């Protein structure tokens, strides 16, 4: 795809091949030398950060390359008022089903786990099918607090289209990734010159969804897989495109991602959801970044079916520590966990203050598990 680049490194990858890894790391070194200045790129995927941290990839990066995790953790960017809605419903006695990572995400005054300790009926599920099954078993009102990006929203859409029991409602906090990349690209302080897009979200949307973004913002986007060598190969391609001032979309994960994506999944997604503007925790108002149920599904919409009593939460004082949390800057790629005075001290996976320390895909939790501050290539 890039002029003058005859060999596509991803075509001949042999995974876990140290020789290939060395060659890719050397290529990263050559290209950053060509570029001749510090360069920052952003990925938007918790699984990418897990692989980067777990396999110590940052220690292999050239010192002038800064790879930042952006708003790629679906649990973390679920906004406080959305958690508050779930908590308020739970405290009103409604059964709540949600993915396990959501339980300890802080709301304004408490998390779902706190509500559970107080006696609220919270159920952890791993799939939307389990939600439907649970609703049939309970035969009492059940609200599915539905979180996650398009990959997970499709699973919610599929069960809605198949028909759900009358006692099941949906509180959608689903988010759609492409619009938030626009927000990051437009941030005045941003140093991000290119994006690594998440392979499996692109499995659904297709890589074509990024073409308009590249056209508008003149920054390249490369779709990459999760294997350490996939990530290195994706970074090599991304840096080539930056060096050559050739903003375009490249796909280094062809075994899972096509240009048009999964049309059947997209069809189901947009039959059930419509994009609306809304806040992402710590980031900003993201136009078209939130997925809400379309009007024809309003009979399933928890926000219409229940009077959600948020005011009942205001009797509790918010945590003072939360004021010092910098999750928002971390998710916008402006700060690292190491910049936070709470990281590893007041804020740990056992006792998280901010959302980034809760989820297995949160930057802080990933850095905490896989070793402190691995970003030896960080820019001053």
């Amino acid at each position, binding site marked *: 795809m890039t002029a003058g680049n005859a060999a596509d490194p991803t075509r001949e990858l042999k995974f876990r091949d140290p020789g290939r890894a060395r060659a890719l790391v050397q290529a990263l070194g050559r290209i950053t030398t060509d570029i001749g200045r510090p360069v920052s790129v952003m990925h938007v995927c918790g699984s990418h950060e*897990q692989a980067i941290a777990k396999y110590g990839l940052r220690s292999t990066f050239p010192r002038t390359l800064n790879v930042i995790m952006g708003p790629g953790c679906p649990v973390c960017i679920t906004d406080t008022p959305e958690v508050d809605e779930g908590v308020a419903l739970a405290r009103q006695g409604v059964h709540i089903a949600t993915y396990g990572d959501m339980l300890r995400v802080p709301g304004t005054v408490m998390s779902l786990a706190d509500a559970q300790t107080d006696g609220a009926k919270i159920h952890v599920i791993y799939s939307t099918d*389990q939600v439907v099954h649970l609703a049939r078993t309970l035969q009492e009102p059940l609200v599915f607090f539905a979180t996650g*990006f398009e990959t997970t929203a499709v*699973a919610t859409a*599929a069960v809605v289209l198949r028909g759900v029991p009358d006692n099941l409602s949906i509180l959608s906090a689903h988010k759609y990734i492409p619009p938030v990349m626009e927000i990051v690209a437009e941030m005045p302080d941003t140093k991000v010159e290119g994006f690594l897009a998440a392979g*499996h979200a692109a499995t659904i949307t297709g890589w074509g969804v990024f073409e308009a973004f590249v056209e508008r913002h003149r920054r390249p986007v490369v779709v990459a897989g999760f294997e350490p060598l996939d990530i290195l190969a994706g970074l090599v391609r991304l840096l080539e495109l930056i060096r050559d001032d050739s903003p375009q979309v490249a796909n280094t994960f062809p075994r899972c991602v096509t240009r048009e994506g999964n049309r059947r*999944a997209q069809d189901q997604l947009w039959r059930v959801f419509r994009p609306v503007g809304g806040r992402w925790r710590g980031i900003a108002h993201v136009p078209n970044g939130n997925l809400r149920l379309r009007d024809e599904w309003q009979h399933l919409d928890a926000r219409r079916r229940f009077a959600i009593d948020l005011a009942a939460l205001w009797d509790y004082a918010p945590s003072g520590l939360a004021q010092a949390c910098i999750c928002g800057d971390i998710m916008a790629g402006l700060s690292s966990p190491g910049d936070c005075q709470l990281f590893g001290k007041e804020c740990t996976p056992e006792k998280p203050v901010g959302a980034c320390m809760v989820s297995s895909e949160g930057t802080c*939790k990933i850095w905490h598990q896989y070793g402190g501050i691995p970003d030896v290539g960080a820019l001053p």
Partner: protein
Amino acid sequence: MCLGVPGKVIEIHGDIATVDFWGVRREVRLDIVDEPVAPGDYILNHVGFAIRRIPEADIGETLALYEQLIAEAAQDDLMASDVRDEIAGTRERADDRR
């Protein structure tokens, strides 16, 4: 939450496939996958749904990543835990439920 996990399709009844994940047989829904799936194919499962049929040429590479993750990983490893959660998102087979 977005990692997904690959498995081998053993049999199909309507929109439901029995899929083998390293010896664990579970049910996965086929409502979302956009290509015909047949027994013997590998699919990528995410929260209980097949989201993609993995092309035959790529199966070895795809499985290798996960096998390494599962083999090496301590119980509290974040990636391994996400893979286990993905398998937990599938359903027990009807036969096993009885």
